[in-house]
């Protein structure tokens, strides 16, 4: 018996060493941690329960039978983050370059199946050279199996991807279908085709970093939701994100003790909106002053900055925030900002996370650049997402809510539950100048008359009261009491029940 126990111990130690000390040192030299070190940092201390430690591939081509390391390049299992269960897989670049074989994929599939059945998020740590070429189609089949599970798990359990090394070719499509992708600056990249192929096919010279580094995907492509300085920081921040998320669509979002006054009055918000309607202000100040403890987890911070998305807590409970940012492009809606917000709204709706919308939007961005690229369909995504969402929805209009953009931004007409407006709100079809030039086209030649008409229009519509008279705004509130009003609205909505008509699924304008 003792021998057998020793044998187990020896095998385990062998497995834990992954690709061996030389490769571990090489991994460290690249500024990267090993698959197991990453799991250690992601999970609560000593909470990791590993499965399939001894799985090895079955490939016999190209001499592979002589190289059958334990684990087959991926570490899988479950553990806890602040006591809450999560499933995790972590590709081991030191073992066969973390390449995906049929068995490697099967390990991932196994824990994904468990996650769906048992209701807990899946966190995937990607660091892989790609398909195991020696296996050929078996490897591709493995990818396919993972993809299918990503799709099935979508909306059932949160899926989070960490890109902590290479992720190229077909491999990118698994993270692509998860809810969030985070990258590590300078040590991770993602692309469908690498720089060499790009050069051969298009003659374009580009580095891996330029083609698919963290900066590219957080600022240009919006593939990634965030990027961090290094592995340690990335894993700590994913732990922080998980604290905001429900474990599955069967659960309410988590609540945790909070140290903040629900009735906290912020007098400074009374002066947030400048007197001059053409001056910008920072909407993030409002978010931070409304949130519990000023804590805000921003998603896609670097992309489409005219729209802000992220998570806060109110009375300890997670709330998703969508806000126009007047500081950038006057907070206008365009293709990028509509797509960014739409995806975020749909994530929140999937997982019963209430949505707070802060509105200061002058309309949609005009121009051929937008129209040619289909702003109609992209804008419709946000409209669709808000309209179909059945979670509690609270909206605060701080200043402009013009035209179609007014309707899109969680208006009462899209079943928003409580819509507040600050006294500085202007809810109208468009700005006074534009409106006047249409209504009073006959007087266009007379600037005095036009100015008088504009003033008249402003008097009539540059306020929240016309909308309030019609009940499109439930209440006009003092800016200073926004936190209290919003928190109480969400408290009132805690037991909200709303169901959309049965359908196989909707047909959002993708």
């Amino acid at each position, binding site marked *: 018996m003792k021998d057998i126990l020793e044998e187990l111990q020896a095998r385990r130690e062998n497995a834990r060493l992954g690709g061996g000390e030389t490769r571990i040192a090489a991994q*460290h030299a690249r*500024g990267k*941690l090993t698959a197991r*070190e990453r799991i*250690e*940092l992601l999970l*609560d*201390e000593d*909470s990791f329960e590993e499965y399939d430690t001894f799985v090895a591939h079955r490939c016999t081509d190209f001499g592979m039978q002589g190289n059958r390391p334990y684990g087959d390049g991926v570490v899988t299992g479950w553990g*806890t983050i*602040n*006591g*809450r*269960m999560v499933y995790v897989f972590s590709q081991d670049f030191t073992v066969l370059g973390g390449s995906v074989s049929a068995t490697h994929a099967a390990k991932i599939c196994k824990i994904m199946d468990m996650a769906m059945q048992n209701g807990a998020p899946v966190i995937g740590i990607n660091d892989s050279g790609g398909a195991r070429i020696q296996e050929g189609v078996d490897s591709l089949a493995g990818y396919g199996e993972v993809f299918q599970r990503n799709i099935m798990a979508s909306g059932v359990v949160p899926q989070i991807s960490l890109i902590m090394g290479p992720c190229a070719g077909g491999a990118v499509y698994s993270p692509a279908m998860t809810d969030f992708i985070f990258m590590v*600056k*300078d040590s991770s990249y993602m692309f469908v085709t690498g720089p060499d192929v790009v050069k051969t096919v298009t003659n374009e010279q580009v580095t891996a970093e330029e083609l698919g580094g963290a900066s590219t995907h957080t600022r240009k492509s919006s593939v990634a939701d965030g990027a*961090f*300085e*290094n*592995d*340690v*920081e990335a894993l*700590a*921040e994913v732990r*922080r994100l998980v*604290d905001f998320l*429900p*474990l599955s669509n069967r*659960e309410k979002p*988590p*609540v*945790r*003790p*909070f*140290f*903040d006054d629900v009735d906290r009055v912020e*007098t*400074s*918000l*009374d*002066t*947030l909106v400048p*007197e001059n309607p053409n001056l*910008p*202000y*920072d909407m993030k*100040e409002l978010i931070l002053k409304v949130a*519990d*403890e*000023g*804590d805000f987890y921003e998603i896609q911070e670097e992309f489409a900055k005219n729209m802000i998305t992220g998570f806060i807590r109110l009375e300890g409970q997670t709330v998703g925030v969508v806000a126009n940012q007047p*500081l*950038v*492009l006057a907070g206008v809606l365009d293709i990028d900002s509509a797509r960014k917000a739409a995806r975020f709204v749909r994530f929140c709706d999937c997982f019963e996370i209430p949505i707070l919308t802060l509105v200061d939007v002058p309309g949609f961005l005009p121009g051929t650049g937008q129209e040619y690229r289909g702003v109609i369909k992209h804008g419709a995504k946000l409209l669709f997402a808000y309209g179909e969402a059945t979670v509690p929805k609270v909206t605060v209009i701080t200043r402009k809510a013009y035209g179609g953009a007014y309707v899109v931004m969680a208006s009462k007409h899209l079943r928003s539950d409580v819509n507040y407006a600050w006294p500085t709100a202007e809810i109208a079809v468009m700005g006074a100048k534009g409106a006047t030039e249409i209504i009073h086209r006959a007087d266009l030649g007379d600037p005095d008359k036009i100015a008088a008409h504009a003033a008249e229009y402003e008097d009539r519509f540059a306020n929240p009261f016309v909308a309030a008279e019609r009940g499109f705004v439930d209440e006009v509130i003092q800016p200073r009491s926004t936190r209290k009003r919003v928190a109480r609205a969400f408290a009132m909505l805690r037991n909200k029940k709303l169901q959309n008509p049965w359908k196989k699924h909707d047909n959002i304008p993708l």
Partner: protein
Amino acid sequence: MFDKILIANRGEIACRVIKTARKMGIRTVAVYSDADKQALHVQMADEAVHIGPPQANQSYIVIDKIMAAIRSSGAQAVHPGYGFLSENPKFAEALEAAGIAFVGPPKGAIESMGDKITSKKIAQEAGVSTVPGYMGLIEDADEAVKISGEIGYPVMIKASAGGGGKGMRIAWNDQEAREGFQSSKNEAANSFGDDRIFIEKFVTQPRHIEIQVLADQHGNAVYLHERECSIQRRNQKVVEEAPSPFLDPETRKAMGEQAVALAKAVGYTSAGTVEFIVDGDKNFYFLEMNTRLQVEHPVTELITGIDLVEQMIRVANGEALPFAQDDLKINGWAIENRLYAEDPYRNFLPSIGRLTRYRPPAEGALGDGVVRNDTGVYEGGEISMYYDPMIAKLCTWAPTRAQAIEAQRLALDTFEVEGIGHNLPFLSAVMDHPKFVSGDMTTAFIAEEYPDGFSGVALDEPARRRVAAACAAMNRVAEIRRTRVSGRLDNHERRVGENWVVQAGGEVPWPLVVKADHGGSTVTFEDGAALRVEGDWTPGDSLARMRVDGVPLVLKVDKITQGFRIRTRGADMKVHVRSPRQAELAALMPEKLPPDTSKLLLCPMPGMIVKVDVEAGQEVQEGQALCTVEAMKMENILRAERRGVVSRVNAGPGDSLAVDDVIMEFE
């Protein structure tokens, strides 16, 4: 007494005057420009009159506009504050003509003290010590030596037309005086075409010490002792205190009596200040007289217990001073720190914008002292570019100087200002500077001690240990809270351990043990040293008021990944608190050097590009305009720092940029 008084000023001084007027039962009228519509002084006053556009020369210093405001509001008296119209004889004259009381000195006194040469002459006649010198023309080197000997060495030999240090020599003996005269004369002739030379006493180790005087309309005049204002940056006072740590009672009395003599000589009434320069041997020389309330008057109020504004109003109302010279004693010590909207890390560049957070320390008792904060701003208010960048005067009083300094340290650490750059860290640094603490300073203090500007304070090891211990205790609270999230797997909760590794300010990490009990935590370092940490900090508090081994420690706290950004005592640092394993792995992470920005043009402020003057491939010369950024309605032209070739332009007109966004790149 007056029923209604108008304050022809803005900012903290207007608020200061309103407070006293209210205490005296006098109604107040504020005036305000477009930029001050929502300013604190407007909110505090009983009524407010709009006087025009933001620019002071179109509002606050336009006599006609103030006179109109007086008429429309029916004010019977005007307090001018400092600056603006406070020392303008024409304003005093206009008020006199209109039969309105001016809370300040008579026109004649303003006029005679407003002129450097006249004031010096009057001072000399009144027996006030002035810098000895010879104003007449000096014929030759022999005469120069003779005059120098009469004045007493060291002397300064200056060209009449001089400037920028040219034609200026310091001589310590006859030999140097002879040579200095000749070389100054030659230089002056060459540089200015005017070789006239004069000689005056060179004041060594100069300190700026001034005497507060108060005089009524019945011939009574007293001095309220001195203020030391030697801590200055480019002639702008930064720290003031009363009394001076340098003066002895004899010197104080001599200075005070001369100041009173001068006040009497010019028929002075109201509050005024006689400024002296004092050398290392306590010789003092008259500089000038300020015929108004000084910015730094609160320190005098704190040590004498006299409300200067109240006395000014009473004097203006014709009342006699209710005290005599013998009644005026020095009680304890007071220090004033001027909080400026200036970024000390960017060479004290003025900073404007919205005060997203403004929480001054509570007024009243603090430690062994008392806090007073004279301010004209509030959270959510706007610091505009039109006026003086001073936003508050933080004063502390205590029985001794050391206690007053300690109270300042705590008060500065408790002061929260966000949204704009400010000099709080610099003030904290001065409060901890050995030279300031010992009282051994001259007007050259800042120039000598911070020759390359200010780049923050590096705490010494004992201080860093205290911060580390406090952060470890705070982190424990934050981590325990994280484990209380709902949805936990029963019986598999996370337990927060006692072993942590703290890395404060990028230094070598310290492993330590945090043991908590009901009263606080005991933090033990590897060498066995233990610190007791107490405090009621909870996550989200931006200020942590801790006690470490019974000594107060106030930290400004921002959450960062695995730790806190801490600001205290002029230091600004990241403090990481990690489990031993986390720390071990964090040590493997590569150190990332900040990107080389020397070949980039970065946007210096949030703003919009209005114009780009160059294009890719173009060669630019040093100083050439590259683009224009509009920020806060101001157009800022960004220029090339050196010769180079533009390789790429990343932004175009209409683009909104954040601070440090890359506008263009150079080859």
